[in-house]
């Protein structure tokens, strides 16, 4: 077999995919790497989801019954880390790998070998993180935000492993981001001018710039935690002249742009799907580009809204409050444009459209609760309660993750050449939609009533709501197994063959190549008019 492969290499550069494990280990093909990223993200989504099930099982009733508090803390911490760095971000990178070259008419990513590396160091990073859970003292238990001194003075001995794995995740996303930027800058097909690029490409370009700007700051923050804990520095230790509040400033200087890293590509996806199933051009293309850019720029000056209760002067609180509220203007422009695109369109409700519509409604709910949190005086009540948990799960689960699911359903037939099982997909959508709201909506109420987050026990008056939240959680978890079954069926190439265009309103270069997309596309660049 190996001789056959070498011969092929010699004879013809345009060979098909080699077979076996080596295909995946050595691949530099953007489509293979995209597939790897997406499967990795999905596996991490299930692992992080299993941890959420542990959390919800413990919180099903008041009192401590299933896990001890230290393990509960490890579950909340690692659940957050895995969902942010292992599920949402790699899923978007996977979509970028699959779609960006096809959308701009490039044969591959600009730096294919680095692309291979940036994927293959990720499983290592998460193996380290997950392995720390099984070591003496357990894994990280200080929350995914690893506030000092929880992560320095009071953390366990596996903190070094946490730091090391975050470093590797950071390097992986930085390499991925550099690749996306270079590809978009240098490899667009002739005629593909900036303002002709699909919005998914635009949003990813801006996301990639955010990534290279803030992932190094995260690397700096974890490095300071490492040296504070193990090498006697006092960046965050008041006794040595440091300041624990400074940790929060550095962390959130990374952390706020990070949350936009997890939502901007989603805006690009929704901006692709809504026009297709409304059979109209996207309303306000240019304003979408400018809105995305201004959201990205504003994300650098709002970080302290995560820290209103740290004792800031009132002038600073006012500044960060108004800067935060300002972000709702470009975000509102986007929601308006999506609704205006649907206005008087010939809408149909295929599965990707269902997810996209759910995204618009539920993401807006999450955005509005964010606006409530931005108001300084009320934030003093909401801070560190389940209201915050409800807010960021609405924007991340029904926002980012619903958009990823919408994207998978939208482009899956292009990738496999077969229509997915629509019945299963509809079951997946409706089960997810109902259960996710049973799961997260009551969190607003218990949060407003004062239930603190990250605590394994709660006061008796929250028992009824928590029972519903847990039931919703289990149902949402099980619903994802429908998605798993559907994806396995799709990867086995079961289903009806589809045309090149797949959806009859779809426009863009990726819909002009045959379905399934051949292993090599656009060897000769297309001409964009």
């Amino acid at each position, binding site marked *: 077999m190996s001789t056959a492969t070498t011969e092929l290499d010699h004879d013809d550069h345009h060979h098909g995919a080699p077979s076996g494990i080596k295909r995946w280990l050595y691949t530099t093909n953007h489509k293979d790497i995209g597939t790897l990223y997406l499967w990795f993200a999905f596996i991490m989504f299930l692992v992080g989801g299993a941890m959420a099930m542990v959390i919800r099982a413990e919180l099903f009733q008041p009192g401590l019954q299933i896990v001890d508090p230290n393990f509960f803390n490890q579950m909340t911490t690692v659940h957050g880390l895995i969902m942010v760095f292992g599920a949402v971000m790699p899923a978007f990178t996977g979509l970028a790998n699959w779609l960006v070259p096809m959308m701009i008419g490039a044969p591959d990513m*600009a*730096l294919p070998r680095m692309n291979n590396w940036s994927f293959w160091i990720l499983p290592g990073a998460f193996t380290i993180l997950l392995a720390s859970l099984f070591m003496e003292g357990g894994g990280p238990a200080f929350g995914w935000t690893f506030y000092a001194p929880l992560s320095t003075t009071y953390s366990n001995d596996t903190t070094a492993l946490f730091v090391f794995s975050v470093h590797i995740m950071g390097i992986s996303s*930085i390499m991925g981001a*550099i690749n996306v*930027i*270079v590809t978009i*800058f*240098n*490899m667009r097909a002739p005629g593909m001018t900036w303002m002709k690029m699909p919005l998914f490409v635009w949003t990813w370009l801006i996301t990639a710039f955010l990534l*290279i*700007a*803030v*992932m*190094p*700051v995260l*690397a*700096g*923050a974890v490095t*300071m935690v490492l040296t504070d804990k193990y090498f*006697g520095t006092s*960046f965050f230790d*008041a*006794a*040595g*002249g440091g*300041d624990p*509040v*400074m940790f929060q*400033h*550095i962390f959130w*200087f990374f952390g706020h742009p990070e949350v936009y890293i997890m939502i901007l590509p989603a805006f690009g996806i929704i901006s692709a799907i809504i026009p297709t199933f409304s059979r109209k051009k996207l309303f306000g293309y240019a304003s979408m580009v400018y809105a995305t850019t201004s959201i990205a720029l504003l994300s650098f000056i709002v970080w302290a809204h995560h820290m209103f209760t740290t*004792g*800031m*002067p009132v002038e*600073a609180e006012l500044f960060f409050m108004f800067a935060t509220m300002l972000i709702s203007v470009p975000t509102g422009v986007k929601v308006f444009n999506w609704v205006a695109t649907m206005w008087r369109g010939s809408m149909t409700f295929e599965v990707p459209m269902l997810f996209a519509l759910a995204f618009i409604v539920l993401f807006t709910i999450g955005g509005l609760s964010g606006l409530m949190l931005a108001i300084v005086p009320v934030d003093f009540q909401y801070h560190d309660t389940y209201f915050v948990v409800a807010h960021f799960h609405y924007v991340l689960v029904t926002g980012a993750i619903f958009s990823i699911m919408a994207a998978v359903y939208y482009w899956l037939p292009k990738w496999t050449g077969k229509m997915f099982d629509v019945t299963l997909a509809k079951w997946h959508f409706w089960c997810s939609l109902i259960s996710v709201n049973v799961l997260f909506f009551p969190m607003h109420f218990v949060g407003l009533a004062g239930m603190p987050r990250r605590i394994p026990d709660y006061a008796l008056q929250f028992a009824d709501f928590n029972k519903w939240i847990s039931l919703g959680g289990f149902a949402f978890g099980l619903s994802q197994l429908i998605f798993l079954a559907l994806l396995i069926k799709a990867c086995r190439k079961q289903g009806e063959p589809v045309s090149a265009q797949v959806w009859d309103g779809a426009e863009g270069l990726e819909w002009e190549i045959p379905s399934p997309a051949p292993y090599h596309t656009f060897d000769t660049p297309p001409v964009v008019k």
Partner: protein
Amino acid sequence: MSNQTQDMNQKNGKLVIKLVAIVFGMFGFAFALVPLYEVFCEITGINGKTSDTAAVYEAVEVDRSRVITVEFITRTNTGMPWEFTAQTRKIEVYPGEMNQVDFYVKNSTAKDYVAQAIPSVSPGTAALYVNKTECFCFNHQPLKAGEEALMPMKFYIDPQLPKDIKFFTLQYTLYDVTASAQVVAMNQG
């Protein structure tokens, strides 16, 4: 064709170098945030830290038109077993007037300790106007097992103190720095 590929590789290489430079720059920026944060807080006084160097009391005019109430709070950090109290809980002073407050410490354990006191003023904006000519918080404070001591702190309030501040609290937290103090002593020895 191969010429074109070479051009493309060169173009990509140049862009990659620029992007990697941004990455390293931002990594450096994370560390630059530490001194920036300190300078910012020192100028604005918003984190309530008083200056850690001695002020000079010279040609300060005493403003007898108003009285400022200063309260002293003492606490010890987790794991620091000393007794630590202010001899005076509360004083009323004129801005510009020199004052002294003594703090009592006792190490009633059987172990030698080195302590470091960290000040914090609330409201933070008052911190800029607290000038100390002498403070135990400027240095490490060692106490042998069973020892006790009175530690003086001399200060005056800058008469420029904003008119709306009539009351502020000065808090000292005592940290156990025995371990790091020994390392320093060994390195010097």
